[in-house]
């Protein structure tokens, strides 16, 4: 039996502007993210003179896209592409850094065309590593795996989201850790599934 929202956030005096567990706007993403890796390290790598490819690897719902969007906030003038079934085009521009979500949407041959643009750095998300492609293209790359979950990170994420939509002081938000453990036991490290569950549970509770 999964815990209801009331048993996860124990404060009863929080006034919410809206459901804390939906999508996050670009403006708010840095206030919500609990970085799995230090963003500063990535920023340094991308600001280096040597172009590089950063790949975020992991199954769906593990936070790859959220980290990509958050990192892009520091490079807002650079292009970002969210590839899906409809939109799979990368414009031929002279961007120094290109952010691409779901790189596997592009056929391999077109990916090589990208990697051969040696002056361009890329930050990509992918379900399966593209290391062989980078090696064949003789590109510098760093790979970051998105798997596993820490209860303390989950608590931070939930508190940040509640604070964002309520202005309730973050340090006063009481989170039931035993409930979080139950969620992790059920959903494993699938953040998206946990947030979807919390979204529905919050909706049910607030009615």
């Amino acid at each position, binding site marked *: 039996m999964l815990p209801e929202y009331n048993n996860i956030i124990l404060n009863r005096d929080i006034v919410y502007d809206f459901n804390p567990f939906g999508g996050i*706007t*670009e403006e708010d993403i*840095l206030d919500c993210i609990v970085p799995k890796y230090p*963003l*500063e390290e990535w920023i340094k790598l991308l600001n280096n003179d040597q172009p590089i490819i950063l790949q975020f690897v992991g199954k769906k*719902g593990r936070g790859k*896209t959220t980290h990509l969007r958050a990192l892009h906030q520091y490079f807002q003038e650079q292009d970002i592409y969210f590839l*899906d079934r409809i939109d799979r085009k990368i414009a031929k521009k002279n961007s120094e850094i290109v952010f691409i979500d779901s790189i*596997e949407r592009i056929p391999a041959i077109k990916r090589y065309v990208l990697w051969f643009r040696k002056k361009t750095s890329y930050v990509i998300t992918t379900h399966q590593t593209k290391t062989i492609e980078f090696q064949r293209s003789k590109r510098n790359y760093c790979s970051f795996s998105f798997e596993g979950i820490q209860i303390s990170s989950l608590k931070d994420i939930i508190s940040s989201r509640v604070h964002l939509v309520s202005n309730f002081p973050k340090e006063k938000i009481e989170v039931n850790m035993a409930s979080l453990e139950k969620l992790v036991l059920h959903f494993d490290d699938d953040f998206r599934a946990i947030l979807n569950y919390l979204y529905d549970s919050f909706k049910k509770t607030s009615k």
Partner: protein
Amino acid sequence: MNALNDFLDINYSLETANGFVLPGDLLQGKIIFQPKDTIGFSEINCHLNYVVTGKIHSKNKIVATQIVSTDRVWSKGNIYEFDVQFKIPKEPKSYSGTNLEIVWFLTIECIPTDETISRIRLDYLKDIKLKMLFNTYNGKITSKHKIQVYSENYIYDLHQETKTVRNYSTGPIIIGLAILAIVIACYFMGWHGVFSYIFGIAACFFIGYGIYAYSSIGQLGNVLIGLTPYDESLFNLDINFEKNTKSIEYIQVFYTIVEEVEDRRGTDTYTLTKTIYTSEKEKLKKPISKHLEITLQFPKSYFPGSFEFATEKINWQLHLAIEFNNNTHFEVKESITVKHIVS
């Protein structure tokens, strides 16, 4: 204090009717600032914005911006008041649904001077980890105040329009026959692979579906749908069939209001839908005329108007469910546009 927001108290005193602002009305009030330290600002803006926040995505839309103040230094302990005034648009209104919400805000955005930023960083934030600085210290002080844009005195406003539902029932037959011809040609050329069977089955499926469609909805030809408002609570629906209606056993007409949120993340694309209203169903048995007139009623309570923003949508959808004499069934769905007028 570990975030820039902690250096300034911001309060709102707005003229609202029981907390609500009427769509199309003027929102007026005061913003009251109380600095907890001496702070210099290069610019202070007030935005009227709404956030469409769904289970999947959230998007912010700034509707109007008022510059509250520029190049000011505020002293600790003083109170600074500024008037703001915004014309609220008629749409969209505040809405809280199952898969999406529309939330209106007044958002204050204060941009401190470089001198203030470096002083605050030096005096207060030096002990905070770099990660925290990135998270909380983006160089701006922001504050949001939720406002409810809604009126209890509204009438539904139907966009008068005509739609033609084209009948493509012969399309699948043609596609099926074309595939079948290719498969047969390949067969005689010696290609007997497993794919020939798969394509052969697919061709039969297309032809079968085409015959099924042609024997029912294909008999009707194109369908012309006309929508006209009748009065505050009713609207008219004119249905014109191009060919004859003899094959129809009965028609059921109704409409639904559906929340649609599309998720295109990652490798799967799917749409979350939630029907929030279904109208009463009007049933017509064995219609003789090619021209039908039906009157439908708007919902008796408040439901949001048609709305679309990024991948979030509130869709009013007209349904024409047709049962044919040969026990086949077809349902035509067409989006219609309905807004509100504040009376």
